[in-house]
C-alpha cells in the first residue's frame, strides 16, 4: 500500500533520512520507534508531503505521491494525520472541527456532516462534548476529537505522530484505547510512538529507526524479546529501564 524506495532527505548538511526502504501492506499496523532525532517524525511526515524528499520515491497504491497528474490536496484527503500537539481548530467546536472537511471538501450538507461527526464522536467516546470548544477539553479529549477529525473523510491511511507524548499519563490510556479500536478494521496505520505496550499488543510490525536509517523491522514478538541490531537493543534497554546509566551496552 505504501512503499518507500531509497528515500533520502537532507536538512542542510544533516542526512536526516538515509536509504529508506519500507513497505507497508494494506490494513497493516506499523509502529515506528527510535531515539529522539532519529528521523521518525520526518519519516511519516513525508507520506503526506508535510516534508519533502531529496531522493528516491514514495508510492501509495503503486502511484508516486509526486505524480504531477494527481492533486496534492486530493491525495491528502485520503490520509488522516494525528499530531502530537493535537492542532484542533480553537475557533470551532468539537463537532465543527470534524464537519469542516466533509462540508467543504466532500460536499456534504450541514445535516449529513453533523450526523457523520456525531457518529465519529460516539466512536471515540465523546458524544456529549460536541458543542465544546477545544479550550474546554482535556488533552486526552482533544486528541480523541483529533482522531475523529482525521477519520472524517474516511481515509485509507492514518498517520500518528507521537499521539500521546504531550499527554499527562492518566490520559494516555483513553487515546491508545481509541487507536486500538481502529486497528485491523481495514485502515492502514503508521504510528510513531514510545508506547511499547501498544506496540506489543496492536502492531503487526515494529520498525526501528536511528540516525535516519531503518535498522530493524520485525514482528513485535521478535523485536521485544530479541532485537537484532545493537542500537535497537540499547534503545529498548533505555526505554524499559530508564534508570540504567546511558552508554552502558548490553
Amino acid at each position, binding site marked *: 500500500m505504501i512503499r518507500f524506495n531509497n528515500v533520502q532527505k537532507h536538512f542542510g548538511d544533516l542526512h536526516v533520512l538515509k536509504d529508506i526502504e519500507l513497505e507497508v501492506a494494506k490494513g497493516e499496523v506499523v509502529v515506528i520507534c527510535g531515539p529522539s532525532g532519529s528521523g521518525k517524525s520526518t519519516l511519516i511526515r513525508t507520506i503526506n508531503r508535510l516534508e519533502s524528499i531529496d531522493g528516491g520515491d514514495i508510492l501509495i497504491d503503486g502511484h508516486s505521491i509526486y505524480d504531477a497528474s494527481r492533486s496534492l490536496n486530493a491525495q*491528502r484527503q485520503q490520509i488522516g494525520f494525528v499530531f502530537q500537539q493535537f492542532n484542533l481548530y*480553537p*475557533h470551532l467546536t468539537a463537532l465543527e472541527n470534524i464537519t469542516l472537511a466533509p462540508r467543504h471538501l466532500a460536499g456534504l450538507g450541514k445535516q449529513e456532516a453533523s450526523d457523520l461527526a456525531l457518529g465519529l464522536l460516539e466512536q471515540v467516546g465523546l458524544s456529549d462534548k460536541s458543542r465544546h470548544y477545544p479550550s474546554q477539553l482535556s488533552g486526552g479529549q482533544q486528541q480523541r476529537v483529533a482522531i475523529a477529525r482525521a477519520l472524517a473523510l474516511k481515509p485509507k491511511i492514518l498517520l500518528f505522530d507521537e499521539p500521546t507524548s504531550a499527554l499527562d499519563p492518566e490520559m494516555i490510556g483513553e487515546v491508545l484505547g481509541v487507536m486500538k479500536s481502529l486497528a485491523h478494521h481495514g485502515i492502514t496505520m503508521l504510528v510513531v510512538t514510545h508506547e511499547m505496550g501498544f506496540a506489543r499488543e496492536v502492531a503487526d510490525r515494529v520498525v526501528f529507526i536511528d540516525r535516519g536509517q531503518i535498522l530493524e523491522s520485525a514482528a513485535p514478538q521478535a523485536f521485544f524479546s530479541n532485537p537484532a541490531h545493537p542500537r535497537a537493543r540499547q534503545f529498548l534497554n533505555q526505554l524499559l529501564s530508564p534508570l540504567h546509566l546511558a552508554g552502558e551496552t548490553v
Partner: protein
Amino acid sequence: MSLGGYHFDWSAVLSGQPLDWLLHGMGVTLELTLLAGVMATLLALVLLSLRLAGPRPLQWIGAGYITLFRNTPLAVQLLFWYFGGVVWLPESARNWLNAGHQLFGIGFPSTELLVGIWSMGLFTAAFLAEELRAGVRAVPQGQLEAARSQGFSQWQSLRLVILPQALAHAWQPLVGQYLNLLKNSPLAMSIAVTEIMYQTSQIESFNFHGIEAYAVASVIYLLLGVVLSAVLTSLNPSPAGLRSNRRAD
C-alpha cells in the same frame, strides 16, 4: 470663562456661521474616514492574499506596496495625488468632478474629497495589511499543517482556519489603525478638503476665536474616536471559542 487672562467666548464658535461650518466639517470628516476605511479594508485583504498565497512576483509587489506607502509621510502622499496624480485623470472626468455635486448637503463626489479618500485609503491599507499579517503569524504553524493535511488548499486554509484566528489576534491593533485614520484626516485640509480642521482654521481667520475653535474641534475628535472605537470593538468577529477562557484581553 477665563483662563490665564484669556476670556473664552464659546458663542463665537457655537452659533451662527461658525457652528454651520463646524457641523459641515464633522460631516466631511465622517465621510472621509468611513469611505477611506472601507477602501483600505478591501485593499488590505487583497494585499494580504498577495503576501500569503500569491506566487513569488505578486508577493514582492505586495511587500513593495507596503514598504512604499508605510514609509512616505501621508502629508506628502496627499499633496502628490492632489497636485500631481490628478492630471492622470482624463479631462472629462475632472470636469465632471468639479461640477459641484451635492450629497446630503456635502459636496460629493468632488475632486478634493475623492482624492482624500483615495490617498488615505492607500496609506491606511498598508498598515491594516501589516497588522493582519502579524495576526496571521501569531497563529501557530500547526494550524496550517493540520488544515493542509486534511486536504484544504492554501486559500481554503487561510479562509477557514487561519484568518478567523488571525482576526482575533489582530482585532485590537486593527481598531487602533482605524482610529489613526480618523486622526490623520486633518491632513486632508492641505488639499482643500473641508473637514473639521479646515473649518476651525477658517473660523480663526473669520473672527479670531481660534482657541475656542480648536478646543471644540478637539472635543469633537475625542467623541468621534470614542464612538468609533466602541463600535469597532463590538464588531469583533472573534469566534466564541477564542474569546472564552482568554485571560489577557
